[in-house]
């Protein structure tokens, strides 16, 4: 079937218009301007240029894909025309936008349409240079098409290399700081590869080439390597695993010493969200009970530790952190049961609303003037004693911290160990729970409550246990958060924290323990590291969630059951048809 010429042109132009509009959108919300202060490759290309180019390149890819017919052979010429046209259209739209902005003042409506944005877009040359946009657009569109046309063998390594180099460029400032503090040679290498805010040109080329070659080598040799590993005698295999594990453990242990407090703090926050995620994963992922007020348990854990250990005026007791944590976990469990009991019979949407209310009640009560004599109200609880390995000095008087004779977990570099160890321990417990009898009962309730009950599962007990254990994990997270920050304010227990936790579970993969960790790294860790973009954090969240639901609804690291549900038609149906046929043949 021949594709009509005008149809092809229309697809290309439509794609180009769409990506042009997206580019304008990115300009008007101020993203391009903010991002252009940051380099991807030092002095050559900024992040702002990069996202504008990315719109044109993806226009090329999309146009090429839309104009190729999977049943026919690839038609490079057609695809190239379509890709180029889409790129040109993108460029024309941007150029038109710049031209328009010179005539009328867009700033009265769009605050971000500032003169500096247009200086940036016009290379400070007025309208003299805007003819370049269609040209650059065409080049980018062609680049996208060529990427699409490349055989799989090359395309995958190249896209992977672009992606990884881009990630390295985003974090190059961090790498640079870490490497410069090391011995001379490492410091030199660091300066050579990483610039202040982006990769150096040579760094970018080195990383790109390295990833491409490793990736191509791996796809060619991975089966051989795996066979080779299988050929090593069993004892040797265990040995290799032990060595790998030891290296990993050493890296985890040494990381905060090497990386400095900023990265340690980010990892602590990721671990705390992972703790909350693991907790909610029990109620939501395992037992299917949606809880939108999960931050309440985090708050309970935090306030319990605060009240028990603070040397400020609100400190009720002055016990050590190690005594306070188990109490905090128990109190959180009690609150879990306290929330669970009234909502036991509530299902689905109604449960979401009921729990949402619970979360808000806890926050409002903790921050209220009414309870201010106990919880400090809006002033919060300050002066929380840091954990101390060793003996803790006597409590002298209010506002004087007790002296720690031994190792004090004073800052993020030390609390890192506490948080990471807790997250690993809780992840291990969650994995064991998932495979236990209780885990199976949760799964049955998630699938069908009535049938579960008819099979002998005690709904009340099982659901309450889900709430209590979930709350316990979140309470532990809250306890560690308190000592990290050294104070508690009700305002930090916002609804948005609960929503973050739900999002990270969805992105990671509902009901999957490794998924929670991956989700926490992706949704919490990356935005924390990229402080410049934190203004657009929720834009990214929204975009990430929509893209996940469209492209990978089972999550980044899905559980077995979810994977089966979403992909059962790939294998299950076929085998059914096959076996029906074979049984017919037998008959």
């Amino acid at each position, binding site marked *: 079937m021949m594709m009509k010429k005008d149809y092809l042109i229309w697809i290309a132009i439509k794609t180009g218009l769409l990506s042009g509009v997206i580019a304008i959108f990115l300009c008007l919300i101020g993203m391009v301007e903010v991002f252009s202060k940051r380099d991807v490759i030092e002095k050559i290309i900024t992040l702002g240029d990069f996202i504008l180019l990315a719109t044109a390149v993806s226009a090329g890819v999309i146009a090429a894909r839309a104009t190729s017919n999977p049943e026919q052979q690839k038609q490079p010429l057609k695809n190239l025309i379509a890709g180029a046209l889409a790129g040109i259209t993108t460029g024309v739209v941007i150029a038109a936008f710049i031209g328009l902005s010179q005539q009328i003042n867009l700033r009265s409506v769009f605050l971000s349409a500032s003169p500096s944005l247009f200086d940036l877009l016009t290379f400070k040359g007025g309208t003299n240079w805007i003819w370049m946009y269609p040209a650059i657009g065409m080049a980018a569109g062609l680049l996208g098409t060529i990427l699409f046309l490349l055989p799989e063998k090359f395309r995958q390594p190249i896209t992977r290399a672009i992606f990884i180099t881009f990630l390295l460029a985003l974090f190059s400032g961090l790498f640079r700081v870490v490497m410069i503090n090391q011995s001379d040679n490492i410091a030199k290498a660091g300066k050579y590869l990483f610039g202040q805010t982006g990769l150096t040109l040579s760094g970018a080329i080195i990383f790109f080439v390295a990833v491409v070659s490793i990736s191509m080598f791996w796809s060619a040799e991975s089966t051989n390597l795996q066979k080779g590993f299988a050929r090593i005698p069993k004892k040797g295999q265990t040995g290799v695993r032990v060595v790998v594990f030891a290296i990993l453990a050493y890296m985890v242990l040494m990381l905060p010493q090497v990386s400095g407090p900023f990265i340690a703090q980010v990892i602590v926050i990721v671990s705390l969200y992972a703790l909350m995620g693991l907790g909610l994963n029990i109620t939501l992922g395992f037992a299917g009970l949606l809880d939108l007020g999960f931050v309440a348990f985090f708050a309970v854990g935090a306030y319990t530790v605060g009240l028990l250990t603070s040397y400020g005026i609100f400190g009720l007791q002055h016990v050590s952190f190690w005594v306070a944590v188990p109490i905090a976990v128990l109190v959180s469990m009690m609150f879990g049961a306290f929330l669970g009991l009234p909502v036991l019979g509530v299902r689905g949407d109604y449960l979401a609303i009921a729990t949402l209310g619970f979360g808000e009640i806890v926050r409002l009560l903790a921050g209220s003037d009414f309870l201010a004599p106990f919880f400090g109200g809006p002033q919060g609880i300050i002066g929380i004693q840091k954990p101390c390995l060793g003996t803790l000095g006597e409590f002298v008087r209010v506002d004087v911290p007790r002296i720690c004779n031994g190792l004090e977990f004073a800052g993020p570099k030390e609390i890192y160990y506490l948080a990471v160890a807790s997250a690993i321990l809780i992840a291990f417990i969650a994995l064991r729970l998932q495979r236990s009898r209780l885990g199976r*009962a949760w799964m049955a309730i998630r699938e069908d409550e009535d049938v579960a009950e008819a099979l002998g599962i005690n709904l009340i007990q099982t659901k309450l246990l889900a709430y209590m254990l979930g709350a316990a994990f979140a309470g532990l997270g809250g306890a560690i958060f308190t000592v990290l920050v050294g104070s508690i304010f009700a305002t930090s227990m916002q609804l948005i924290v609960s929503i973050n936790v739900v999002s990270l579970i969805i992105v990671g993969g509902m009901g999957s323990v490794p998924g929670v960790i991956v989700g926490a790294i992706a949704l919490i860790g990356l935005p924390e590291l990229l402080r410049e973009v934190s203004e657009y954090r929720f834009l990214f969240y929204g975009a990430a969630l929509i893209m996940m639901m469209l492209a990978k609804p089972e999550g980044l690291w899905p559980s077995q059951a979810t994977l089966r549900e979403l992909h059962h038609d790939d294998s299950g149906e076929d085998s059914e048809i096959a076996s*029906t046929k074979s049984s017919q043949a037998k008959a």
Partner: protein
Amino acid sequence: MSILNLDNVHTYYGNIHALKGISINIEKGEIVTLIGGNGAGKTTTLRTISGLLKPREGKIHLNGDDILKYQAHEIVYKGVSMVPEGRGVFARLTVLENLEMGAYSRNSKEELSRNMERVFTLFPRLKERRTQVAGTLSGGEQQMLATGRGLMSNPSVLLMDEPSMGLAPVLVELIFDTIQQINKEGTTILLVEQNALMALSIANRGYVLQTGEIIISDTAENLKKNPTVQKAYLGME
């Protein structure tokens, strides 16, 4: 000796009087069927026996023990198991996992493997498909799985809700043959069916339920000859 006895049971959905004083008696080793049209209260009766609904009035005895004092999940431990209507298998779990769920109330490993072996002997198809996800099974296989899961708790009374629903005639026959087989192995069966002819052909006795009341109770042979039953449920004039 009577194994299951319902005495003047009244069950409500809110203000709707669904069961208006039902009395049923089942002897050990029998197949008893409950026939009736849509909304007659057949499923409600089963849900009341298994404890998912609590009657406002009346008594239910299992082996002489009053089971109204137990929760639904405890009744399973007393030896009553239900195969729900519309099969109700756990669609995302494998056949094997579904069966293991059925044995949730049984702790011993040996008992589990013994019951599993029994189910696989009754339904060889399930053994072939034990690693397959239940949602991808055909309707007949799902019914087999639901029945097998009901047997995994090794019940003395098996409550079956509309096992023939939505199945091809060949499969209906297969399922009913298996029900007889299960009964011969010593399980008492209470069978709820819209397909009255099939049900009466394997049952010892039957009750006819109409808008929450039992209007006829007799042996299966006599019910087949009863003009009311013939007219209303067997499609004969």
